């Protein structure tokens, strides 16, 4: 197993800059997930590590060795493709043993390894079949099996679950998590699905516009988003953003917009970090909005709102509430409210975030 370093990676296609100075470290045996919207350059980064894209500038190191110019076959990595990329003219067993045969591994070794991987992935009964005769989930298992048998330094997963239906995706997600525990391997996993990122990763790297926006454990990224993009991208349903101005008076900070006025205590925002009148954005997740609860330590003042739409999800419900002209989404225990009801809304200070509007960076603690 191995560590991987991306140092100042730049990738340009003609005038189009896809990656702009990306630095990412993957520690030995770490499960690192790169997450970002499509077109953010995450797949390009992965393909550069695989050797399928050239590097415009910067260095890629595997175990401290620069591999920029190495042919894909010389990097000792295995990759699982989004579209599986199984060889259609070979059986499952041949697909899985292809790389070992190329390396002239003795036949007994090949058989043993293929058998072991097939057992791990529960595809033993399909070994003699062609990919054509398999379902999507089974094909994905074969693709993973093809990677496992090689015992590579690094596993690369390029959006492996995005072609599966929702139920199968959940199943395979659990399988991949189990696989990581068993293999104890270095894994680089690319996805646009933040749920996959949150559930699978040891560490998450959030990318946007060819740049790393934030890296950290899933909890860090979720509870302390570094900027507006990360705050909006991670977490479902999406965080509410309230745009307005800071008012600093005698050591007391307030957030003021046309519709909303709330106190921002020092525990949330150091008064020294904001100027009076500075344009700020306050972020609060739907889960951290309480509706019709009495005043309590740690909650904001009550804001008068009117319920616009309510979506019942079972034991929870999504409430779209207008506070003046500002619409916020609250996710609360279901009590069966009717649209048009007057409601009192309070935010939870502990999980509020304040961003500077100009730089989009986090300024709260």
């Amino acid at each position, binding site marked *: 197993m191995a560590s991987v370093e991306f140092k100042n990676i730049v990738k340009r296609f003609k005038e189009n800059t896809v990656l702009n100075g990306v630095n990412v470290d993957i520690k030995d045996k770490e499960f690192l997930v790169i997450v970002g919207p499509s077109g953010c350059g995450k797949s390009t980064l992965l393909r550069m590590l695989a050797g399928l894209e050239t590097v415009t500038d910067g260095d890629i190191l595997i175990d401290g060795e620069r591999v920029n110019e190495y042919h894909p076959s010389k990097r000792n990595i295995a990759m699982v493709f989004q579209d*599986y990329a199984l060889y259609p003219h070979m059986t499952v067993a041949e697909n899985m043993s292809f790389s070992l045969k190329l390396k002239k591994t003795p036949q007994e070794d090949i058989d043993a390894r293929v058998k072991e991987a097939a057992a791990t992935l529960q595809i033993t009964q399909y070994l003699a079949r062609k990919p054509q005769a398999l379902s999507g989930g089974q094909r994905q298992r074969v693709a993973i099996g093809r990677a496992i048998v090689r015992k590579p330094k690094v596993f690369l997963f390029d959006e492996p679950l995005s072609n599966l239906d929702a139920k199968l995706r959940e199943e395979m997600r659990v399988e991949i998590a189990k696989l990581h525990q068993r293999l104890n391997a270095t894994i680089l996993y690319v996805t646009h699905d933040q749920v996959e990122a949150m559930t699978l990763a040891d560490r998450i790297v959030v990318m946007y516009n060819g740049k790393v926006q934030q890296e950290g454990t899933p909890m860090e990224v979720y509870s302390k988003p570094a900027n507006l993009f990360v705050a909006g991208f991670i977490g479902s349903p999406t965080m509410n953003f309230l745009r307005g101005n800071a008012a600093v008076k005698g050591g007391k900070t307030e957030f003021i917009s046309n519709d909303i006025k709330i106190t921002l205590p020092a525990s949330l925002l150091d008064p020294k970090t904001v100027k009076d009148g500075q344009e700020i954005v306050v972020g609060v997740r739907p889960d951290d909005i309480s509706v019709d609860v009495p005043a309590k330590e740690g909650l904001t003042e009550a804001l008068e709102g009117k319920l616009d739409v309510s979506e019942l999800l079972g034991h929870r419900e999504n409430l779209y509430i207008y506070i003046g002209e500002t619409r916020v989404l609250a996710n609360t225990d279901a009590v069966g409210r009717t649209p048009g009801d007057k409601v009192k809304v309070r935010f939870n200070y502990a999980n509020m975030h304040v961003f500077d509007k100009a730089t989009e960076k986090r300024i709260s603690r």
Partner: protein
Amino acid sequence: MIDNKKTSAMSPEELSEKYEKTKESLDQLRGMLMPFLKAQYEKNRKSLERREKIKIFLIHLVIIICCFICIYPLLRIFSISLRPGDKLFSTDLSLIPDGATFSAYVSLLKNTNFLRWLWNSLVITIATSFIGVSLASTAAYAFSRFRFPGKKIGMIILLSSQMIPAGMLILPLFLMIMKMNLMNSYLGMIIAYSVSSLPFSIWILKGYYDTIPRSLEEAALVDGTSAVGAFWRIILPLSTPALSIAFLFNFTTAWNEYLVARVVLFSSQQYTWTLGLFELQGQYLTQWGMFAAGSMLVTIPVLIVFLYSSKWLISGLTLGSVKG
């Protein structure tokens, strides 16, 4: 219809009575309708079956007519090849003529260079096919996968070269082959043939390669093959349908070609069968029996190649490789 407002005001007894009544009347209605529906269903089923039968009959009719048009000349030639020498110009239309004989075949093989011509054709055709397909498969791969200056123009030039009638190329081809000192030789013929069918083969193969997902080669590269290895182990095996079409095209054009052969070859020893058969056509006497016998014999190799390659012409070979 049951009025909701009314039912809500009724007592349970009234309600169940009303329910029973409604049920009864519905059952009656069903009893009346069922025989009618059944009859309709039977009628529909029968007319559908009849329509299906007519459809199948029409399809077969068209196929049979087409087959007959294709096979008729072949049968006539076969019948002519069997006629004894004195009945060559008979207008008899029977398949096996009176006094049928293989004497034309025997004298063709005995008295002419026919076997030699057949051999020449075979050597030239097979060499042409293999060289043509290997050149086309690699060139098409470059056109399909790599980016290089002149790619688009190259494809257009290849296509437009197909628009020039073969006859126009005879003279330049003659001059080139003469300059290369390859007149009256296998090699000259092989070069002329394999090059002339290249554009078609490249277009066919390029189009086919384009449908093979790139991730297959990328997977092969990551699995440890070289670029050439990925082409050889993944792309070529998957392209057998297109490769066999290209092969067949090369084979049949080279096998049946006359014009270029007429120009390049000039000794009877080097003739291909197309030239050879015309040897039989004299100014005063054409040996139609032998001519027909020769025509029958030369279809055999083509027939074998077609039958053999048809099993490779299965499309959909890439099914199941990637999510589609």
